[in-house]
């Protein structure tokens, strides 16, 4: 076989591989959507769940997922940004830093159930937050911080050190240089990481079972006073999320339409992740343009 044929063959194989991957994903998506979408109605999206009768919806779970996501990201984004900046800009290159880095990375491959149990013992019991959105958001923060921090650090490190020198040579502090020049430039990378993190938050079940809880008490959508117990904004109420709901009905569901609810909820979850993905990407691009004054990424 001569080199030309080899080249053709290899290209063919690569096309096949790319095709297979797309096929696998397409069939995955199709499977979830075809099974689930027929069950998705406006009623399904807004009605509260029923524990043992047919006809329940996922309204509260859907809201909980989003609220938890927002809360978790509000806590973890600034923290990971601060930590990532510290690691990439300030930390001395010594054994202590590398120890910290290593332990953060190890934490990121810990099974989420271990993190969930840790959160349960610390936040739910020790801090007496109970099964609540707050406990859930905190445990998701713990769960997500290593990944986000690493991502921020890597994104910052990928920006040329010449940019830092430029800022410093103008008499700016390293902090201001990083916050106003390096971070905006690293924004696409940081946003991608945040999106992936948010996707993990949205789909996480194991860590939430013991922290945000598995019950979705009825919410009073007319009362937005965060102190009222049935208020959607109350961070101290238990909140079953969509992923936990899927897990629960798959394992212990006794409602007659459990299969349909589970399939429908999975489809909604996928669609939500997809929409979120696109939205965050658009937002990141928008922010990047606004902060750097560029139409497109420069040369």
């Amino acid at each position, binding site marked *: 076989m001569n080199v030309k044929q080899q080249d053709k063959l290899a290209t063919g194989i690569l096309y096949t591989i790319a095709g297979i991957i797309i096929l696998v994903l397409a069939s995955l998506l199709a499977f979830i959507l075809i099974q689930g979408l027929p069950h998705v109605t406006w009623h399904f999206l807004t009605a509260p769940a029923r524990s043992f009768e047919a006809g329940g919806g996922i309204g509260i779970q859907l809201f909980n997922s989003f609220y938890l996501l927002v809360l978790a990201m509000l806590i973890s984004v600034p923290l990971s940004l601060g930590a990532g900046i510290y690691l990439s800009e300030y930390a001395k290159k010594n054994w202590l830093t590398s120890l910290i880095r290593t332990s953060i990375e190890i934490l990121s491959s810990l099974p989420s159930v271990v993190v969930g149990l840790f959160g349960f013992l610390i936040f739910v019991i020790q801090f007496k937050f109970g*099964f609540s959105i707050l406990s859930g958001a905190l445990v998701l923060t713990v769960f997500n911080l290593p990944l986000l921090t690493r991502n921020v650090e890597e994104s910052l490190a990928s920006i040329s050190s010449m940019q830092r020198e430029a800022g410093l040579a103008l008499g700016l502090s390293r902090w201001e240089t990083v916050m106003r020049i390096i971070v905006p430039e690293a924004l696409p990378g940081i946003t991608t990481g945040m999106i992936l993190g948010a996707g993990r938050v949205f789909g996480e079940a194991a860590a939430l079972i013991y922290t945000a809880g598995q019950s979705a008490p*009825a919410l009073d959508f007319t009362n937005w006073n965060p102190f009222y*117990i049935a208020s959607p904004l109350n*961070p101290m109420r238990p909140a079953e999320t969509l992923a936990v709901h899927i897990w629960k009905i798959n*394992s212990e569901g*006794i409602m007659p339409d459990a299969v349909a609810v589970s399939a429908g909820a999975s489809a909604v979850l996928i669609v939500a992740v997809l929409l979120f993905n696109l939205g965050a990407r658009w937002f990141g691009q928008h922010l990047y343009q606004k902060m750097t004054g560029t139409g497109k990424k420069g040369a």
Partner: protein
Amino acid sequence: MKKRILLVAALLLSLVTLTACQSSADRGESITVVGSSALQPLVEAAGEQYGSEHLGKFINVQGGGSGTGLSQIQEGAVAIGNSDMYAEEKRGIKAKQLVDHRVAVVGITPVLNKKIGVKNLSFAQLKAIFTGQVTNWREVGGPNLPIVIVNRAQGSGTRVTFEKWVLRGAQAKQAQEQESTGMVRQIVATTPGAISYMAFSYVDKTVAAVNVAGVAPTDQNVTTNKWQIWSYEHMYTNGQPKGLTKDFIRYIYSDAIQEKMLPKLGYIPVNHMQIERDLKGNVTATKGG
């Protein structure tokens, strides 16, 4: 941008602290019930109904398993701990300080994959199957098909009850384990030669329940103890219940729950029992019988 994020975070944190400090009067009242996944549907349904009848009062129900329920109530982290077994049966639990409320009875039946076709098994056969002495359905009057055992997780209430009355102290064969009844049912339904066990309420058309020693798995047979594989569902409180906890437990014992809701969900009301069985398995007739 950073400042804004920090500001929002600070606001939220203060909000949270405020919320935590607020008196219970303006934010309603709630208790948390944790534990046995077998009892979870009942308490959840009852809690929902209770909440709709008592405005501003909320019952939060969590699963997690009997072990979680017992250890949480022992630590005083929750108001009620649900369990499928007596607290005394679980190692590491100081049962003395806990108050037992037996709110329902659940019968547990062996279930088979429908294609096996075996209708009746003796206790000896069941024991032989689950200890691994018998590995083919042919040996117990079925088709020539290897037996696939599906267990619940070690320590699960359903498994403890089943092994207590079927194996009677013998060591179970190491086999597949599943965390939840839903998974077990799905696996038994789709795997040729599969056998497992589950609460009556979970048995549906996809799996086949069998008679044990000629006794059918019915509520009626449980109330007379002719069907021996059953357990009480316990709601444990740490000390005598007070306030909302007490009110809710009383509500569970009310006719609205016991007579109307329990049968619909597949549980047997405690006062239907014609016998009483204590921790050691001693059976005595009750007033009802």
